[in-house]
């Protein structure tokens, strides 16, 4: 019975795990066997046990903590001193990868942190000036750290499970404490700004790259509070976010906190004063628009589109450059991204001013007509949904004489050719709507459709022939490719012949200059073209 089998297929066993910095011949050997090494590498890494640590351990073992009395039990005169002691106690860091050591001390720190959170959120008058440095010191010691190497260098936030911060039981409470500290009614930015400075913010921003979504969520709220309370830091924060995005777009293509930062920006843009500063416009055009090119756009597109629309609502004159920017970066191969772009375009069209629409309608609808004809039905469907939008319909109707000629060809063709029946049905509806908008134009286009297509085909053929001719020219002129001066001469001669034959007597460069550009010839140094011409004619003479 096994006679039918032509060859045993490649096995599908578990591959061996392959390390990130391992160069071993077994890998190259296995690559010869199947082409899925990369995938198998990823799979192998997924199985890796979480073992990185984000804390730079100094090899000093933590001192055992002893519990201090409760703040609420202390006499009010001693409370401040006890508060400071507790803050200092919480500066002790523990190794959370080792789940058996320091259990008692860890529990003491956790309880103390809980108490501290409670203390700053419920009590008034606890934020005396001398407490600020102690508080910020406790916070920076606990949360500021170099993030560990990613467990999975090919981490795909859409598919893979993020590595969670091991010391979260403590860190969460420290973040909570920072937030309550900032939100305390007695909090005074004028004092705090000595400690919550540019360096502090800088380190806070770097933490947004954390793989742990819980941490990023806290960071988002905290940065937003800081932006709101510290006017002096606002420009700095914007600039640093700018840099993070630029590094993300053009250097690393990797940063976990893009969505969170965009969310903060969304609310910041809302508050921009009018007219918009050049800095803000530059941010829109040189940072937010190029962000659309990112591989993981899906992770932050909603926030990004929100920011873009916020900008356009502030200043409608930005509509044209923004849409041109999106058209420039329009996805060429990724249908999912194309659907996102179409969604963003619809959001923009929802708020567009009719005058702005007129400026951009031609290039925009050329793109939409391509999307409508996309063989991927989700792209086509998303584009066709535009015709369900009342406001967009009114804009189209207003400019039907411009838009219909652009759209007609695609729509007419796919109404006959698209493989997906839903798309065909949608297209019929759209065609009907368009026909109702301008019946005469629609009829004209219908009747000239065939002729237009033929003309297009002919043009295409002509182009192909021209390219062929060009290749022949190159082939028949090997000297032209190899020997510069020689090839030049031949073409130059042809050039001259042509001009002699034609009614416009444009000959070699000296007559040419006098004939056509006499005005220029006067202003330029006449000697230059002359001497050039002389050079050429000697070449020709040869």
């Amino acid at each position, binding site marked *: 019975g*096994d*006679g039918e*089998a032509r*060859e*045993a297929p490649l*096995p599908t066993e*578990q*591959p*061996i795990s392959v*390390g*990130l*910095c*391992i*160069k*071993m*011949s*077994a890998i190259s*050997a*296995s690559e010869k*066997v199947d082409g899925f090494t990369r995938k198998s590498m990823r799979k192998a890494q997924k199985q890796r046990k979480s*073992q990185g640590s984000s804390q*730079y351990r100094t090899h000093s073992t933590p001192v055992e903590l002893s519990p201090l009395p409760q703040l609420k039990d202390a006499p009010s005169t001693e409370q401040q001193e006890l508060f400071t002691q507790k803050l200092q106690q919480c500066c002790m860091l523990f190794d959370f990868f080792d789940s058996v050591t320091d259990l008692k001390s860890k529990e003491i720190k956790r309880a103390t942190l809980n108490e501290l959170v409670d203390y700053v959120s419920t009590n008034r008058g606890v934020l005396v000036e001398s407490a600020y440095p102690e508080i910020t010191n406790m916070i920076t010691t606990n949360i500021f750290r*170099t993030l*560990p*190497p990613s467990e999975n260098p090919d981490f795909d936030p859409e598919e893979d499970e993020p590595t969670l911060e091991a010391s979260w039981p403590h860190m969460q409470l420290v973040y909570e404490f920072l937030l309550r500290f900032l939100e305390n009614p007695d909090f005074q930015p004028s004092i705090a700004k000595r400690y919550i400075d540019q360096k502090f913010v800088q380190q806070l921003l770097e933490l947004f790259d954390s793989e742990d979504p819980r941490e990023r969520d806290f960071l988002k709220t905290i940065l937003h509070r800081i932006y709101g309370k510290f006017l002096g830091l606002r420009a700095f924060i914007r*600039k640093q976010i700018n*840099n993070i995005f630029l*590094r993300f777009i*053009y*250097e690393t293509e990797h940063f976990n906190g893009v969505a969170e930062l965009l969310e903060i920006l969304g609310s910041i843009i809302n508050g921009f004063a009018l007219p918009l500063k050049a800095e803000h416009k530059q941010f829109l055009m*040189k940072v937010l628009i*190029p962000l659309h090119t990112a591989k993981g756009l899906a992770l932050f597109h909603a926030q990004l589109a929100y920011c873009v629309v916020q900008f356009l609502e502030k200043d409608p004159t930005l509509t044209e450059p923004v849409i041109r920017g999106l058209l*420039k970066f329009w996805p060429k191969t990724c249908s999912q991204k194309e659907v996102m772009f179409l969604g963003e375009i619809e959001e923009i069209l929802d708020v567009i001013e009719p005058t702005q629409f007129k400026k951009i309608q031609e290039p925009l609808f050329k793109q939409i007509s391509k999307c409508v004809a996309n063989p991927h039905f989700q792209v086509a469907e998303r584009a066709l949904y535009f015709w369900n939008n009342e406001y967009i319909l009114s804009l189209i109707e207003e400019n039907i004489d411009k838009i219909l000629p652009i759209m007609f060809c695609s729509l007419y063709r796919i109404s006959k050719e698209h493989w997906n029946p839903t798309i065909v049905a949608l297209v019929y509806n759209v065609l009907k709507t368009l026909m109702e908008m301008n019946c005469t134009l629609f009829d004209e286009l219908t009747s000239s459709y065939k002729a237009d297509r033929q003309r297009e085909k002919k*043009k295409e053929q*002509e182009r192909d022939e*021209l390219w062929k*001719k*060009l290749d022949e*020219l190159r082939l028949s002129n090997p000297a*032209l*490719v190899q020997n*510069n001066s020689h*090839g030049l001469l*031949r*073409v130059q001669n042809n*050039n001259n*012949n042509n001009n002699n*034959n*034609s009614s*416009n007597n*444009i000959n070699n460069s000296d007559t040419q200059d006098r004939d056509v*550009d006499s*005005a*220029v010839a006067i*202003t*330029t*140094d006449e000697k*230059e*073209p002359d001497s050039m011409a002389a050079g*050429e004619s000697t070449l020709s003479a040869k």
Partner: protein
Amino acid sequence: DSCSVVNRGFVCVCKSRFVFCFLQQRRRAGPAAAALWQKPRSAAQQRHSVTATESKMAGADGDDSLYPIAVLIDELRNEDVQLRLNSIKKLSTIALALGVERTRTELLPFLTDTIYDEDEVLLALAEQLGNFTMLVGGPEYVHCLLPPLESLATVEETVVRDKAVESLRKISQEHSPVDLEVHFEPLVKRLASGDWFTSRTSACGLFSVCYPRVSSTVKAEIRQHFRTLCSDDTPMVRRAAASKLGEFAKVLELDYVKSDIISLFTALASDEQDSVRLLAVEACVSIATLLPQEDLETLVMPTLRQAAEDKSWRVRYMVADKFSELQKAVGPEITKNDLVPAFQNLLKDCEAEVRAAAANKVKEFCENLPEDNREQIIMTHILPCVKELVSDTNQHVKSALASVIMGLSTILGKDNTIEHLLPLFLAQLKDECPEVRLNIISNLDCVNEVIGIRQLSQSLLPAIVELAEDAKWRVRLAIIEYMPLLAGQLGVEFFDEKLNTLCMAWLIDHVYAIREAATCNLMKLVEKFGAEWAQNTIVPKVLGMANDPNYLHRMTTLFCINALSEACGQEITTKQMLPVVLKMSNDQVANVRFNVAKSLQKIGPVLDSNALQTEVKPVLEKLASDTDMDVKYFAQEAISGECLSSSTIVDKLNT
């Protein structure tokens, strides 16, 4: 002087004239056509119609050779990116056709003006322009290429910008010293003081190419600009500057290296961003190489020490990764005093990434230690850390170590190897991670030279057997690949006794890739041990499989014969293998039969013409009339191939 005249003329001419002679007809065609040459994209539709009429006109003129060039230029602005890209890639053809003067005065200004395009097109353009020197008239005019490249060096997309910088660096060499100062250096300055970070980033890569060939005043300016960029506000620019620091240091006079570069190096190495700091580590290698030994301690070492203990693992990783280079650059004394403790710390780092990078360097580091007390340093400082790494928690660290640890035996000699290293090798041979074991086995030759493999063979065998039977076929595959090497080192006796069974067992592995590798392995073994050995040990077993009930095993016999016939020679092939193959032509499974045809074709060259004519040919002819179409096909293939090969043999015999 003459240069500036040309330049001025060039600017005036290009502003008022059109790209090509008969484009001037276009200008006369009216304002609409003129406008479309300024704003191609917005007027694309009109342009198309104009182009169409134009093409007819030109065609009517009967000039075929010139016309496509115009089309090319026209297509440089086509709506379709692919067409624009095609024509940009043929830019040199356009330039050749235009001639050097028109290229300078018309084509280049046109390109400079229309630089807004898809990055794909810009990338192709940036690349082309780097090879354009001859097309604009040689080195004398090479500066004409600067304006478009300058624009390209400021675009956002890194790939385009880098390519533009690469081209600029290339053509900088073609500038005369005068042109370099008059044209190139001002461009660098403009880029270095650009508003947007992209131009400043690009400037960083251009300082070192013009510095050696300009006057001392300009040199001072260049140094100043570089200094400014090293403390730029934008981290992207500081990163670019840091990555070019070493390269720039190399072209500077030693005094300036000491005064300028060191302070920049120190500043960058303590930058707030670790991405900048780690680049300074790279620069450290070049800088240390440039400085005399007596200055290293004061000028470089404080920074290097700091980097080795940086709080960011990325910086420490970089130090570990560059450790051998650093070691060579700072020399033996500093290595002894500073780098040995630093290396110890890296081997004990808390991040596995850093430990693995350092473990990779163990052999190289030990090799390059000063010979006078190399052994002592290794034994007292390095080996204790290595011992710890053998039982590291991270498998990547262990396997990085396993790939180099065997190299220590040549450095430490026989006695130390037996006493100190052997236990480590043995421990790694028993490691739970197959990669570690494989890395040890693949480096056995180092140990073989020092202590002979016998010392290891007792532990080796269980390790090999275990790997040979590993559940993961890739592991089995890897160990098969080392078999010929092992056989060579262990000798034929040991092999026959212990390993032969394994090699034969792989032939009936259930994974095809393993069977295939096992076949190939047999061939290599025969090459090593000779035909006689083959005849006695493996050929009988291989041929025995021809009667196996599993057709896959029967086919393996054929594959083995294919591989072995040449190494075994005519005698064995004709007398022992051929009969088996011929008999298998009656197999009930079609796969076996067409593989018989293939085998016959394969072993044909080894057989004599008599056997071919009397034995092979009839069988192939029978197979050629088989009921299975594949069998037929391969039999016919073999017959036509066989005729050719047999005739060559006949020819050989005749002559």
